[in-house]
């Protein structure tokens, strides 16, 4: 995104090109233009632009994409961690 980049080399996005059927859905939903279609298969073009929103993985009809999507703010992650060690019942969202 113009003028905004976040930490490099951390995104957990993974594409299984074998499974991909080249439907182009990931290209349509990704707000950061991470994908491009190349020879009727999706291709990851700019991994560092991925914000791990999960839109591509949710909308891929053949589950060729995985990404550790979810709460992306400090207090949300702390709540999730508290929930995982049973201090709190549920991890709450960010916004």
């Amino acid at each position: 995104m113009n003028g905004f980049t976040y930490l490099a080399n951390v995104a957990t996005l993974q594409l299984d090109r074998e499974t991909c059927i080249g439907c182009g859905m990931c290209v349509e939903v990704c707000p950061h233009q991470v994908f491009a279609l190349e020879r009727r298969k999706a291709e990851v073009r700019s991994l560092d632009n991925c914000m791990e929103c999960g839109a591509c993985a949710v909308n891929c009809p053949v589950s060729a994409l995985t990404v550790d999507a979810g709460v992306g703010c400090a207090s949300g992650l702390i709540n999730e961690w508290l929930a995982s060690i049973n201090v709190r019942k549920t991890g709450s969202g960010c916004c």
Partner: protein
Amino acid sequence: MSYLVPPGLYAIGMPGAEAPVVVTANYKMSYDIVRSELAGRSVWLLVLETFGINVWCAAGKGTFGTDEVVRRVQATGLDSVVSHRQLLLPILGAPGVAAHAVAKRTGFRVRYATIRAQDLPAFLDNGMVATPAMRQLTFTVAERLILTPIELVSSVKWAVPFTVALVLLTGLSGLGFSLTTLLPVIVACVGTVLAGAVVAPVLLPWLPGKSFAVKGAEVGFAWAAILTWWRSEGLAWHDTMILFLAVPAVSAFLSLNFTGSTPFTSRSGVKKEMRLSLPVMAAALVVALIVWCAGRVF
């Protein structure tokens, strides 16, 4: 003022069976923007129950999601209202909605239209094809400013009790409860919250570094410097030290929290930042506390 719009099917203009169906959240602001952008056209507006939360945040929570789309399509009897089988969704709603699942369960095909509601008219005029610009995420000052109340409201929960406690402590520690002694404490606390939750988000692209915690700390340092300069007379050395330790730490945490509202920070990135910055923030606060205690004793 209510921020909720009852979910359901709304008509803009005089839509017929052929008119497009635009899906949005029942957050008052999203609803109003979509309505005013589409004014003068004939469009169906399907409002989902997202409990007054905007599309992007609701998609993350899953309330702007597959199940709710299916439920609302069925509850409104949409298939007998329109003759086509197409829903237009905002792109930022995609993390919550599986297009293929909606198609399977309702027969309606989900099309992700644009990111901003402002581009909807152009999208419709363009034969429902999104141009690259319509898919390009932006994060302008205005867009950032709209999100800051979310941070402010959630920080009020702990910031107000904390400020009250600090005011009581200051009052009880021999200074008495007068406006001159208490006002600086209140100004410092309120300012710190504003520094991390409003100023840092607004200045985001201009603050050096990529780390949100660092950006927040920078604004915090600036605020501590302003406070020190303003109070240069009556400030003991240990108070100055506390300001420079605690204010950037709190401001850094608030900025780090703003990552939850930004449309470009990744969860893994925030995790990494937290691993590195939380110990530093905690250490700064502990040292500040020790200095504070020491300052009261000696």
